[in-house]
C-alpha cells in the first residue's frame, strides 16, 4: 500500500548487490499534476523496459510531507517541488541530489470573487487566506508576493491559516476562507468552482520559476549512476511524449490523480473531499505548466538565495551542492 | 412576663412542645444526656433552626426576626473560630459586620482582651491556640457585640479543671457587669450547681424538670433521678 506507516526499506543499492538486472526503487510523489511526468511514465510503462522496477509509490499531500518523510529515509527517488527539496537538503540534512527538472510554474492564488476583486482586498480585516504549511512552494510564493507588491505582511500573515491543498479547496467551497494558494491541479480545479476565480498565477510573481524537480538520494547516485541516467532519460521521454500528446497525457494524469485520491483523503483526514479530476481539468491545468526536463543552476541558486533571505534557511549554499545535472 | 419566653416550641427532629421562661439577668443551666435536645433549644432561641411555636424576647415575638438581628451572643458547642482570622479579627468580626468605626473596635477589643487575659494572643491564628485559649477567644467574640442574651453550649467541656474553674469565675463577673441573661448547656452537674440560678433538665426533647439547684438536687423528678445521680457521680 501507499500508507506512510511502512518502515524504511532496504535501499536499492543493497538489493542491487543480489540481482544485477532488476533494480527496484521506492518513489515519493506529491498528489498534484506536478508529478505528471511520473504518472505518465508509469502509465505508459516507460520504466519496465529499462530494468527499473517501481517497488513502492508513496503519495503525499504536499512537498512538506515528502520532506518530512525523507528525513526518515526509505525513498530512492522523488518528484517534488524545488522549495521543499531545498530545505529537505539544507534543514533536514538529507543527502539528496536534483537530477532534472520536471516543469516550471504551476501555482495559483484562487479567490472568492464575491469577496475579493483585487490584491489589496487581501489586506481587509475579516478576510481569511489559506495556504499550505510553512515551507511549501505556495507559502514561498505568498511571501514573495507580499514583498513584490508591497502588501502589508503583518495583516496578511495573521489572516493566513495553514492546511493542505485538499482542505483548502473544501474550505474555499464552504466559505470558511476567501482565498487559497495552491499548486496545480488544485488551482485550476478550484477556479472551476462557481464564483471562484484565479486572481494570480505564479508566473505573475516569479516568471517561469522552477516548479518541481526529480530528486534522488546521494547514495543512489553514487552506487547506481547508470540507474540515475535511466531515470533522467525516462523523465525526458515522458515529458516529450506528454508535450506531443497533451490530451492523452491529461487522461492518464486525471486517472492517476483519481486513483490516488483515496489515499490522500485518508492521509489528509478528508474523506469528504471529493475532488474528482476530469481530463478537461487536468488538461487545462497542465496548460499552466511549462513541462521541461531543463533546469538551470542559476535559477536554483536564485531560489536558494531568496529562501535564505526570507529566513527559510539558516545559511545559504552553492546550488551545485544539490545538483547533479549534465 | 419573662425576658425570654418559649411557647409550645416543637422542632422537626427533636423538641416537643417546650415551654420555658427565663428571667432577665438569670443564669440558667441546661442539663441532659447527649442527643437530648440541648443544642437544639439554643438554636431555637438564636433562630438557627426551624421551629413551630413562639419565641419572645422581652415580650417581642421574634419568630420572623432573623438570627443576625436577634442580637444573641452564642458560643457554639465547638466554638468555630474563623480559621482565616487571627484572634483580634475573630473578635472584631461582629463589630465590623455591624459597621463600627475602626478606632472604636480597637478600643473595645483591647479592653476585652485585657479582661479575659488574652492580650498576648492577639495576633495568633486559631490553629496556634490551645483549647482553653480558643474558648476564651470565642467567649470574647460572642460578648463583644454586647448582646443581652448569651447562649453557651458546653463552653468548658474540653478544659482541665483548673482552667475551667478560672473561666467560670470570669463568667460570673462578666454576667454581673453586663447584666447578661445566660443559658448555659453542660453535662456536668457540679458546674451547673456552681454557676446557675436555676437548672432545666431536658431528656428526649422534653423538659423533665425545672427548678433551683437545691430543688433538683434534693427532689429530682422520677424519670430523671437516674440522670441526676449519674451526673453527680462524675
Amino acid at each position, binding site marked *: 500500500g501507499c500508507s506512510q506507516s511502512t518502515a524504511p526499506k532496504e535501499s536499492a543499492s543493497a538489493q542491487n548487490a543480489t540481482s544485477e538486472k532488476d533494480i527496484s526503487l521506492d518513489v515519493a510523489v506529491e498528489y498534484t499534476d506536478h508529478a505528471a511526468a511520473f504518472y505518465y511514465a508509469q502509465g505508459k510503462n516507460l520504466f519496465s523496459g529499462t530494468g527499473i522496477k517501481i517497488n513502492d509509490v508513496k503519495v503525499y499531500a504536499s512537498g512538506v510531507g515528502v520532506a518530512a518523510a525523507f528525513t526518515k529515509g526509505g525513498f530512492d527517488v522523488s518528484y517534488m517541488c524545488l522549495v521543499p527539496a531545498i530545505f529537505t537538503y539544507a534543514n533536514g540534512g538529507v543527502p539528496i541530489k536534483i537530477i532534472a527538472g520536471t516543469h516550471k510554474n504551476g501555482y495559483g492564488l484562487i479567490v472568492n470573487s464575491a469577496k475579493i476583486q483585487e490584491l489589496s482586498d487581501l489586506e481587509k480585516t475579516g478576510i481569511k487566506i489559506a495556504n499550505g504549511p510553512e515551507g511549501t512552494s505556495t507559502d514561498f510564493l505568498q511571501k514573495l508576493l507580499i514583498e513584490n507588491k508591497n502588501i502589508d505582511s503583518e495583516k496578511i500573515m495573521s489572516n493566513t491559516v495553514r492546511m493542505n491543498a485538499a482542505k483548502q479547496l473544501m474550505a474555499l467551497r464552504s466559505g470558511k476562507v476567501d482565498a487559497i494558494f495552491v499548486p496545480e491541479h488544485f488551482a485550476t480545479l478550484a477556479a472551476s468552482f462557481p464564483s471562484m476565480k484565479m486572481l494570480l498565477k505564479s508566473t505573475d510573481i516569479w516568471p517561469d520559476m522552477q516548479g518541481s524537480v526529480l530528486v534522488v538520494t546521494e547514495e543512489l547516485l553514487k552506487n547506481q549512476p547508470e540507474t540515475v541516467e535511466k531515470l533522467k532519460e525516462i523523465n525526458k521521454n515522458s515529458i516529450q511524449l506528454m508535450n506531443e500528446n497533451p490530451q492523452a497525457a491529461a487522461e492518464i494524469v486525471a486517472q492517476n490523480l483519481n486513483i490516488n485520491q483515496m489515499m490522500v483523503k485518508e492521509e489528509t483526514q478528508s474523506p469528504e473531499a471529493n475532488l474528482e479530476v476530469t481530463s478537461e481539468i487536468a488538461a487545462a491545468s497542465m496548460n499552466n505548466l511549462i513541462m521541461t526536463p531543463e533546469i538551470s543552476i542559476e535559477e536554483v541558486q536564485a531560489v536558494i538565495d531568496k529562501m535564505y533571505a526570507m529566513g*527559510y534557511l*539558516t545559511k545559504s549554499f552553492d546550488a551545485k551542492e544539490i545538483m547533479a545535472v549534465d | 412576663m419573662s425576658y425570654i419566653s418559649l411557647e409550645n416550641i416543637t422542632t422537626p427532629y427533636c423538641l416537643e412542645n417546650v415551654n420555658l421562661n427565663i428571667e432577665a439577668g438569670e443564669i440558667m443551666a441546661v442539663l441532659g444526656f447527649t442527643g437530648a435536645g440541648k443544642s437544639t433549644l439554643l438554636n431555637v432561641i438564636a433562630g*438557627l433552626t426551624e421551629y413551630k411555636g413562639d419565641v419572645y424576647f422581652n415580650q417581642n415575638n421574634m419568630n420572623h426576626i432573623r438570627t443576625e438581628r*436577634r442580637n444573641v451572643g*452564642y458560643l*457554639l458547642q465547638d466554638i468555630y473560630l474563623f480559621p482565616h482570622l487571627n484572634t483580634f479579627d475573630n473578635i472584631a468580626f461582629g463589630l465590623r459586620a455591624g459597621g463600627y468605626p475602626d478606632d472604636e473596635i480597637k478600643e473595645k477589643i483591647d479592653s476585652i482582651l485585657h479582661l479575659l487575659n488574652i492580650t498576648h494572643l492577639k495576633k495568633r491564628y*486559631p490553629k496556634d491556640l490551645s483549647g482553653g485559649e480558643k474558648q476564651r477567644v470565642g467567649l470574647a467574640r460572642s460578648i463583644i457585640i454586647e448582646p443581652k442574651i448569651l447562649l453557651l453550649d458546653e463552653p468548658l467541656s474540653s478544659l482541665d479543671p483548673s482552667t475551667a474553674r478560672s473561666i467560670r469565675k470570669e463568667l460570673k463577673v462578666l454576667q454581673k457587669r453586663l447584666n447578661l441573661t445566660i443559658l448555659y448547656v453542660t453535662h456536668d452537674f457540679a458546674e451547673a450547681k456552681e454557676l446557675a440560678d436555676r437548672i432545666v433538665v431536658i431528656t428526649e426533647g422534653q423538659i423533665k424538670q425545672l427548678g433551683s439547684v437545691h430543688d433538683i438536687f434534693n427532689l429530682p423528678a422520677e424519670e430523671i433521678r437516674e440522670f441526676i445521680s449519674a451526673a453527680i457521680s462524675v
Partner: protein
Amino acid sequence: MIEDKGDQLEMKQNILKNNLLHLLPITLFLVLWEIAGQTAQTPLFPPLSKVIEAFGSLLRNGMFLKGIVASFGRVLIGYILGSSAGLFVGIIMGVNKTAERSLRPLISILFPIPTLGWLPLLMLWIGINEALPVALIFICAFFPVSYNTLTGIKEVKEEYIKAARTLGASSWYTLWHVILPMASPNIFTGLRLESGMVWRTVIAAEMFAIPTGIGALLMNAESLIRVDVIMVCLVVLSIMCSTFERFFLWLERRTTGAWR
C-alpha cells in the same frame, strides 16, 4: 577556634560537594547531548550549541518574541475571563441550592470533555480568529475553577456560617468574609492546576487553527524541519508554564499560608 575553622572548612567542602553532585548529572547530560549531536550530524538531532545558537538568532528575529507575547496575551485574557466566570458561577451554585441543582448536571456532562474537543465546534461557531483561542482557554479554565469553587464553598462547615450570623453578619457579609476566605484554599488549588492546563490549550489552538503564537512557531518549525527551533520553543514553554504555576503557588501561600 582552630576546630571551628576546621568545621567551617568541612562545611564548605560539603556544600561544594553537594552542589557539584547536583550539577554533575545535568552537566553530564548537556555535554552528552552536545557530543551526541555533533557525532550524529543530522539536523534531526542538533547539538546543544546549535540550539543555543538558534535561540540567539530567534531572539534577534522579532517573530519569536512576538509569538511568545501573542500566546501569553491569549492565555492571560482567556484565563482571567474563564476563571472569573468560573468563580462567579461557582459562587452562585455554592450559595443557591436551585442554581446548584440546575447547573450541576450540565456541568458534570461538560466538564469531562477534553478542552480540545471543543475546538472543532468553536471553529464553526466562532470562526478562525483571535476569539477562538481565548474561547478555548475560557472553557479550559471555567469548568475546573467553577467546580473547585463550588467544592470549596460546600466544604465550609455550616457552623461557621451560623457563628457569623449570630454575630450579626448579613448573608452578603458572611459570603465575603467567611465563606469565600475559607473556600479560598480549594479555589486556589483549582486556579493553580488550571494555570498549567491553559498553556497546553493555547499551544494546541495555535498549532491547529491560529497562525500566530508559540504553537504556530512550533508547527512551522516542524514543516521546515527545524528541530533546533522546536527545542528552543519547548524550553521556552517549559519556563513559561512553570513560572505561571509557581506564581499561583506563591499567591496561594501568601494568601492562605498564615492560617492553614
